[in-house]
């Protein structure tokens, strides 16, 4: 039974969101969400890798045997990550200088692997591509929200240096909402990552409860 498109999109963005529902990919989440811009950049790169690898795995899903599937999935994710890394370094160098350090982290993110195993290995190409893409966009949203909160509390800004990532046309996104030097540094330091992520999780559950939804433990296996 193929999953309906609407469910795939809703799952990726909210219901089964990689970070705030499945709690996957915590390592890159903690590492890059010191600012909203960093979160956005790594999120986009991850979404590209996830969409491409889901597409490839779905395409070859009848060729890849059970016994060798995990090494093949990792090979595909690592190849896509390297491709993104090389292309960004060559043609989007300003962005690469900001994000280059984080791109290899995509391989260590368990979210792409989890989606390949749980979804792309069983579903048709178009749906798998959509799942990879929207899981990636959901990951991006979570990273941007966590990054924006940490940046605002820690530094008083939101989307600082966005123009460096997206181009000069995006200067308007760079907001200073609180005066300089008023930040609570803790939010940017590692403990702040755990605190803010925890609070965002609480917020999601409260919204779900208010909407009368049953709270269930989501997992990597859920489709």
């Amino acid at each position, binding site marked *: 039974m193929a999953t309906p498109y609407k469910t795939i999109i809703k799952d990726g963005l909210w219901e089964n969101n990689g970070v705030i529902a499945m709690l996957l990919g915590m390592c890159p989440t903690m590492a890059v969400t010191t600012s909203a811009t960093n979160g956005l950049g790594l999120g986009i790169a991850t979404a590209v890798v996830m969409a491409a690898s889901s597409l490839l795995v779905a395409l070859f899903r009848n060729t*890849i045997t059970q016994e*060798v599937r995990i090494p093949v999935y990792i*090979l*595909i994710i690592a190849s896509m990550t390297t491709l993104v890394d*090389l*292309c960004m370094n*060559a*043609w989007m*160098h300003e962005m690469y200088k900001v994000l280059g350090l984080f791109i290899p982290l995509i391989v260590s993110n368990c979210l792409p692997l989890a989606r390949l195993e749980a979804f792309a290995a069983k579903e048709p190409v178009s749906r798998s591509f959509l799942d990879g893409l929207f899981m990636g966009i959901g990951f991006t949203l979570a990273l941007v929200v966590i990054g924006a909160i940490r940046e605002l509390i820690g530094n008083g800004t939101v989307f600082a240096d966005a123009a460096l990532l997206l181009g000069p046309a995006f200067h308007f996104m760079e907001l200073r909402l609180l005066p300089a030097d008023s930040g609570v540094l803790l939010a940017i*330091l590692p403990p702040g990552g755990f605190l803010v992520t925890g609070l965002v999780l609480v917020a999601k559950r409260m919204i779900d409860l208010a909407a009368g939804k049953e709270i269930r433990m989501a997992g990597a296996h859920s489709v």
Partner: protein
Amino acid sequence: MSRATWIHASILGAFCLGFGIVLAVTDQQTNDDIKQRILEDKERSLSQVLPTAIHDNSPVTDTITLKDAKGEDVTIYRATKGGQVTGVAYTIVGSGYAGPIRLMLGVDAEGKVLGVRVITHKETPGLGDKIQVDKGDWILRFNGLSFANTPLEKWKVKKDGGQFDQFSGATITPRGVVGAIREGLHFFDAQKSKMLEAG
């Protein structure tokens, strides 16, 4: 070995070969562009510590290698005008609060600091990162200073009896930077003749 083993091995092998080829082709396609970008980055960081007015060459390609006090190789980028060396730039390393701070130091032929810029550091955001030129002008106060116009005992942060401000909440970072520049100038004094040798 059973037939199934061979099948699995050949599937895995085929994927490795396929993606290996894809990556090799991409690497080849992007290689020149990436080299060009790295060169441009280096040129940009060098132009901040070696003003264009003092040279008519391309310092990024005019390099010599010398050994520092610890016996490690240091690449010296040289600015020349009319065949005369007018300034040199090289990487110096200070020990910061959270690991090494790498800086590019530019010195003119008389041993005066032309400029210092941070290349990489892991200092605390909001406290130690004021050493970056885009976060504060602290790093600019070294411009024009030398051992000739600033006595050696003044090359310290104020807390240690020198003349350079520390930051509120961060002393170790500026101490590391001042120390690195002091060592960098000692290195210049020791290797001056080799650095300024024409050609």
